[in-house]
């Protein structure tokens, strides 16, 4: 077992390195650099920016250097000093920016995952055990509508309805009066008042997928001989379903939790942009468009690392459960 874990970890290191290179290359792909878009942005906002100034800034940020030099500077900073570089747009160290937002992002994503499972699993089980019944069709339709509705559009509509019909305060995760306030019980309550909209929208998108997975896996499982055997032995249907097949059907579900977290963060991006949430998504999107390369690169690396770690954890868990996997790898 220990050997397996060690092997997996050693494979992970080169993977992470390659990912860091890819992340860096990806943010270099679009033409121009941060300063081109910075100058453009300033001019849009009415500044007069001289070319000399831009050239000097380019020198200052080391943007004139070859890409590999910039990469080594960045990656060695991360490995040796935990320094992720400086965000050019926010004029702040990347590290501070990421940590500030990570907590809220985790809360949002975590709550959304839980909510979506809470809804998805019972529905999925019902759908599978009542295949092709009217409720199965209805639930399927609802879940596909959830998949099919573009989240960004839904976010705007819900926000608009929440405001016009119910007079709720929308946008962001807090009311203005709590934004600068220290944490307190009232602030938590205020956050919960705002949290439900994004949770609802994000959960709706992923719930649908989860329902489908549960349904499909459970259908496969219900066709297996052991279910037949149990049924033949006279086990009541409810216990029969929930005791084994559901558990097995949910197995792949839980084993991908690490993977789905990163995916969810990336998936909430558009919704968060519309809702103006101060989570990782909008900042990442903005960093990518303005080519704020250290910030964008760090986000990419962070999310990819989360996926790799998540996969590692699920693999180890699986190996622990199923010894055959250990042997194979």
């Amino acid at each position, binding site marked *: 077992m220990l050997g397996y874990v060690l092997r997996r970890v050693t494979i992970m290191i080169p993977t992470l390195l*390659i*990912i860091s290179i*890819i992340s860096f290359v*990806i943010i270099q792909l679009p033409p121009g650099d941060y300063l081109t878009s910075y100058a453009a942005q300033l001019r849009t906002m009415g500044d007069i920016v001289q070319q000399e100034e831009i050239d000097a800034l380019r020198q200052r940020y080391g943007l004139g250097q070859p890409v590999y030099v910039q990469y080594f500077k960045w990656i060695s900073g991360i490995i040796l000093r935990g320094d992720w570089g400086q965000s050019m747009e926010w004029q702040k160290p990347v590290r501070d920016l990421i940590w500030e937002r990570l907590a809220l992002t985790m809360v949002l994503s975590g709550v959304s995952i839980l909510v979506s499972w809470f809804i998805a699993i019972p529905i999925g089980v019902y759908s599978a055990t009542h295949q092709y019944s009217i409720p199965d069709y209805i639930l399927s339709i609802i879940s596909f509508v959830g998949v*099919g509705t573009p989240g960004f*559009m839904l976010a705007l509509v819900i926000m608009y309805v929440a405001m016009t019909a119910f007079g709720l305060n929308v946008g962001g995760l807090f009311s203005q009066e709590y934004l600068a306030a220290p944490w307190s019980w009232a602030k938590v309550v205020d956050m919960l008042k705002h949290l439900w909209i994004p949770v609802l929208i994000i959960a709706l998108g992923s719930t649908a997928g989860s329902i489908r997975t549960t349904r499909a896996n459970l259908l496969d499982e219900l066709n297996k001989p052991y279910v037949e055997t149990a049924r033949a032995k006279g086990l009541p249907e409810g216990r029969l379903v929930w005791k084994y097949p559901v558990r097995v059907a949910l197995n792949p579900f839980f084993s991908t939790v690490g993977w789905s977290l990163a995916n969810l963060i*990336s998936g909430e991006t558009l919704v968060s942009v519309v809702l103006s949430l101060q989570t990782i998504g909008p900042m990442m*999107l903005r960093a990518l*468009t303005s080519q704020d390369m250290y910030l964008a690169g760090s986000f990419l690396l962070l999310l990819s690392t989360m996926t790799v770690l998540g996969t590692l954890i699920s693999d180890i868990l699986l190996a622990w459960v199923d010894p055959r996997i250990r042997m194979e790898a």
Partner: protein
Amino acid sequence: MATSSEADNLLPQNDLEVAEELKGEEEKIYVAPPWRLMWWRFRRHRMAVVSAVVLAVFYFVAIFCEFVAPYNPEQFFIKYKMAPPTRIHLRDAEGKWHLPFVYRIERSRDEQTMRSLFVEDTSTRYPLRFFVRGDEYKLLGLFKTNIHLFGLTVSRDEQGIFLLGADRMGRDLFSRLCYGARLSLSIGLVGVFLSLILGVILGGLSGYYGGTLDVIIQRVIELIRTIPSIPLWMALSAALPPDWPVVRVYFGITVILSLIGWTWMARVVRGRFLALREEDFVLAARLVGSSEMRIILRHMVPSFLSYIIASLTIAIPNMILGETGLSFIGLGLRPPAISWGVLLQEAQNVRSLALCPWVLTPALAVIIAVLAFNFVGDGLRDAADPYAR
């Protein structure tokens, strides 16, 4: 197989088949070729059948959009700025019945808020007709004609018909939706086709040969899947040369969407290959002395083709949604191209919600398309293995 015959009765278009089935149902199942077994199983999923019809209609509209759309989607008219969907009447103001018609619509403006106001002038009626003459176009790019599926007999300067209302420039939203279907629905198909090619080749290689090649391909897939999709899309789309014409951008975006999509296709194919490699019928073929190529193409591919088709069907909606997402970030297609993503981007604001919510109907089209594809995919998956129970 009681349910099977039930399903057949619902679809009596093939009377012969039904009659046959009633005679010797059991026997027929044993002798039926696999595709027929699949069809029977597919038919059991009623929503899938309905959805298949819906998709057929959608693709018909996409292919013949010039014919279905009553107007040129680019033509703007002050008169119809933010006009709501035109009401189609059967009964006039005096209570008399007619064939479908619309009333003349007068626009005025609230001078305080500048909102456009529309009232029906019940003194003038315009009959709604099918196959009317309108703007000239080339059907399928070949035949010059000016016949449209439906419309009014008068020119649009006098009165227009807007099934889904008009946008802020007085352009007919229904026409735009029809033209948008062409790009949006084909992006899904082309993208999935590209994914399929990449996925089958790489997944097949990986699964059939195994060994080092398998390890390398698997690692690459893992890497691509590790990188969050939105940044990857963004970077790749931003890297498309901005000077490209619309058509090339369209293909660029399709390629980008499929570059990410092929990975799981490869996984599916590889998994199937791994499983089938050990099957008896493959071993049998090998013992008979069939060539590797023949084994793959003649024996293995057909046996998992259905799975692939099912997965493909479910992949198409992801492409459609991906296109709308890219448009939302501003990296997708751009006007003058018309796609559902472009239409949604134009509608993605509070003023549309407040003043002309009908411009959100493209979202409905996206949802219906996704729904239909998923149901068809579901049905295909259920039907995929005709010999399973």
